């Protein structure tokens, strides 16, 4: 990774390669945003991470909040004191913050406030592919959608300005292919952040009791009408190309595919690019519909634009022919789009021949890959979760049920570990476990990570104590929000400003919630951990076992820094290739070559778990510290 200090450079006009998320971070500095809050989540994580790296030097305040709801609360509080703020999150994070969002639209803000929601079409690293543009429609808040890193930066600044003008939060919606695309970004001027706000008591504006909410709803609708006027003349909504054959309306990453697909098909296409997708520029759309016989809407996921454009057409251009994914599915409603999928749809609509023999490529490709072994994401060699799962499986076996949660440990559901039966959203393991335990009477062990525990599991745990539910909550505490890039959290003792903090310990929280049986174990001490977990399962009410060991990737890095040499595991002559280690652990560092078990010296981290599971004591090396 390059030095993120590059984001701080006061070099207007300089062109630099930035990730979409880094470009948003640069936009924060050029917009003079003074408060940035986030909960890490792919594909949004690098926004907060970049800011965390440079916040002290940039003179702004940054925090990793405990969850997205709190992140929005903190930022909205600051913005209501006139301070410019931004909150970044993945799409599902906005579900967590939705309660606040819907009424924050009523109170509004004084300082500019931008909420970045990064959607994940294709579920590259998410549990669903919801289309968050509907939150803009739902909340009546303006929404901007960049299609590349340069626009991501520009729109961050425009969103802040628009927010201040309308006194409303503004949504900035990206997708994986915007957030995780690198492209050249030309810098603008830096703006000094102003962290000094002032709170002005104004009950009618800020206390949403019914008598004050009703008039504020009217105000919101009035501001939304103003936003629509802005949309009509916004530089982000424009006809980028004139053409006679067909009209294309597109936005976000889909726009990139649409332009390239039209070119590859040699279409004489008029293209309307929408960068402000809520409220839509109605007049501009009417003009575009009138000047093209056929109009194609190219958009990813839901027919968000299509629904609204068809409604506009019905009122103003009833004979317009609009194509998309609603009545006939020219483009898929699920998964991410691609230049290919857009070409196929456009070719169908325009009766053009495809210039590339995709079917031929598909057939040949299917033939050569039919025996190709898959390479799914797996727990790293040395991952403490593997040890925890080994212990949990040993205690619970096939009889117990294992509701699990969002994090690296979701990978425990795969064989041979087979720990993980239901996984829905952040924190849901602890709640669903209670219903499952009641409905089945079976031993139920809920699996949850440390960061996820703080994020969303505490009300669920209190519920278990209050209603005396029989379940074990196994907190797999690896001392980081690991999967999204090892961000700190309340249990780590470090803040987003890189300063020290009070460590919030899972076991203290559990005790404070009233859990009677709370134990902390080292998962690599398999015998002791097994005994503790067995005892936990025997409890008549809720119990908590914290499996604590740092993420191995952080551990290796730390050891390298300190110059500590890792002692790797070694197979001795006693090995009779029984394959127990492979069958029980599926560690990527244990491989079979010519029928013989071998330890890969590049991958082995020396965790020692294989040493403790080998039935013939045929593996030697360092054991757990």
């Amino acid at each position, binding site marked *: 990774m390059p030095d993120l200090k590059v984001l701080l450079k006061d070099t207007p006009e300089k062109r630099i390669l930035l990730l979409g998320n880094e470009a948003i971070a640069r936009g924060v500095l050029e917009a003079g945003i003074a408060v940035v809050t986030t909960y890490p989540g792919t594909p949004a994580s690098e926004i907060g991470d970049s800011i965390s790296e440079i916040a002290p030097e940039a003179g702004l305040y940054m925090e990793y909040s405990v969850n997205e709801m709190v992140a929005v609360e903190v930022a909205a509080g600051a913005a209501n004191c006139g301070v410019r703020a931004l909150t970044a999150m993945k799409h599902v994070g906005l579900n967590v913050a939705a309660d606040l969002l819907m009424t924050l639209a009523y109170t509004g803000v004084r300082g500019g406030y931008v909420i970045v929601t990064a959607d994940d079409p294709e579920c590259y690293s998410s549990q669903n592919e919801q289309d968050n543009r509907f939150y803009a429609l739902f909340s009546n808040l303006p929404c901007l959608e960049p299609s590349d890193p340069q626009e991501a930066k520009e729109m961050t600044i425009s969103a802040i300005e628009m927010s201040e003008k309308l006194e409303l939060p503004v949504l900035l919606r990206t997708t994986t292919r915007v957030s*995780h695309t690198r492209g050249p970004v030309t810098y603008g001027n830096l703006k000094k952040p102003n962290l000094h706000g002032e709170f002005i008591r104004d009950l009618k504006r800020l206390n949403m009791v019914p008598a004050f909410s009703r008039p504020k709803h009217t105000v919101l609708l009035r501001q939304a009408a103003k936003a629509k006027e802005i949309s009509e003349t916004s530089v982000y909504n424009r006809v980028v190309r004139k053409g006679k054959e067909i009209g294309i309306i597109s936005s976000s990453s889909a726009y990139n595919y649409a332009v390239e697909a039209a070119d590859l098909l040699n279409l004489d296409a008029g293209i309307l690019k929408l960068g402000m997708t809520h409220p839509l520029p109605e007049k501009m759309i009417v003009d575009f519909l009138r000047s093209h016989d056929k109009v194609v809407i190219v958009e990813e996921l839901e027919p968000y634009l299509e629904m609204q454009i068809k409604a506009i057409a019905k009122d103003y251009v009833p004979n317009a022919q609009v194509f998309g994914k609603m009545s006939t599915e020219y483009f898929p409603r699920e998964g991410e789009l691609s230049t290919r999928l857009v070409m196929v749809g456009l070719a169908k609509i325009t009766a053009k021949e495809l210039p590339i023999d995709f079917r031929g490529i598909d057939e040949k490709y299917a033939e050569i890959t039919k025996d190709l072994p898959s390479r799914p994401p797996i727990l790293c060699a040395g991952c403490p979760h593997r040890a925890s799962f080994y212990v949990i499986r040993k205690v619970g076996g096939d009889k117990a049920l294992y509701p699990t949660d969002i994090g690296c440990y979701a990978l425990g559901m795969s064989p041979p570990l087979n720990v993980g039966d239901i996984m829905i959203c952040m924190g849901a393991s602890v709640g669903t476990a209670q219903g499952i335990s009641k409905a089945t009477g079976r031993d139920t062990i809920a699996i949850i990570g440390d960061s996820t525990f703080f994020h969303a599991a505490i009300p669920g745990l209190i519920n278990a104590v209050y209603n005396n539910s029989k379940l074990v909550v196994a907190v797999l505490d690896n001392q980081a929000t690991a999967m999204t890039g090892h961000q700190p959290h309340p249990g780590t003792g470090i803040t987003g400003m890189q300063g020290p903090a009070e460590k919030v310990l899972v076991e203290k929280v559990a005790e404070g919630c009233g859990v009677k049986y709370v134990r902390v174990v080292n998962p690599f001490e398999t015998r002791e951990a097994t005994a503790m977990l067995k005892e936990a399962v025997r409890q008549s009410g809720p119990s908590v076992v914290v499996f604590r060991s740092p993420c191995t990737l952080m551990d290796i890095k730390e050891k390298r820094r300190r110059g500590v040499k890792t002692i790797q595991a070694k197979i001795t002559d006693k090995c009779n290739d029984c394959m127990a280690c492979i069958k029980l652990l599926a560690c990527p560092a244990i491989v079979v070559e010519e029928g013989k078990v071998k330890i890969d010296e590049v991958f082995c981290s020396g965790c020692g778990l294989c040493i403790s599971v080998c039935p013939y004591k045929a593996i030697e090396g360092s054991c757990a510290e």
Partner: protein
Amino acid sequence: MKEFNIVLAGVGGQGTLLASEALGMAAVKDALNVRVSEIHGMAQRGGAVVTTVRIGDNVLAPTVLEGQADVLLGFEPFETVRNLKYASGKTLVIMNTEKIPPTELAAKNVKYPGLDQIVQKVHLFTEKVVLIDAAQLAKKAGSSLTQNVVLLGALAGTGMLPVKKQSLIEAVRELVPTKHVEINLKAFELGYESVKEGHKKA
């Protein structure tokens, strides 16, 4: 400039992200338009990883269309095969011969196929294949962790890239930790020379 498309395919932890970022940085240094696509998230290590780099004035989409790669840079044989859909007759496949067996193979007790079988599959898409023992060259450079930079050097060695060799070297210098710069630059040169030599022979 007409577009130039590179697909980099490997296993998480092999440094494909760094290699694609270096290519993107080099393009910006040479005042070219570029898009680099990355996928982060699920599993820090061990999963299949593919990134794409597209250079050219009219490039907008970060991803490469099927059959349209100019180069497929395979960091591992199986992962090269997994991404052959991006290859066609015009594609040069540069493949690292170092195998990383997926855990599925060990679990099913299946052997990793021989390189000749892998190359046969590649030949169904393109005749242009260059094999590199990046692991050996990386070790020679001083660290087996520099295989990604060996492969970048090899890519530069083909002379096909629209970016200058020097710009790519500068990008590598900026991206790797200061204390590992020398080893990485050596790895780059070893990769570069190995392909240049190979091309001469052919």
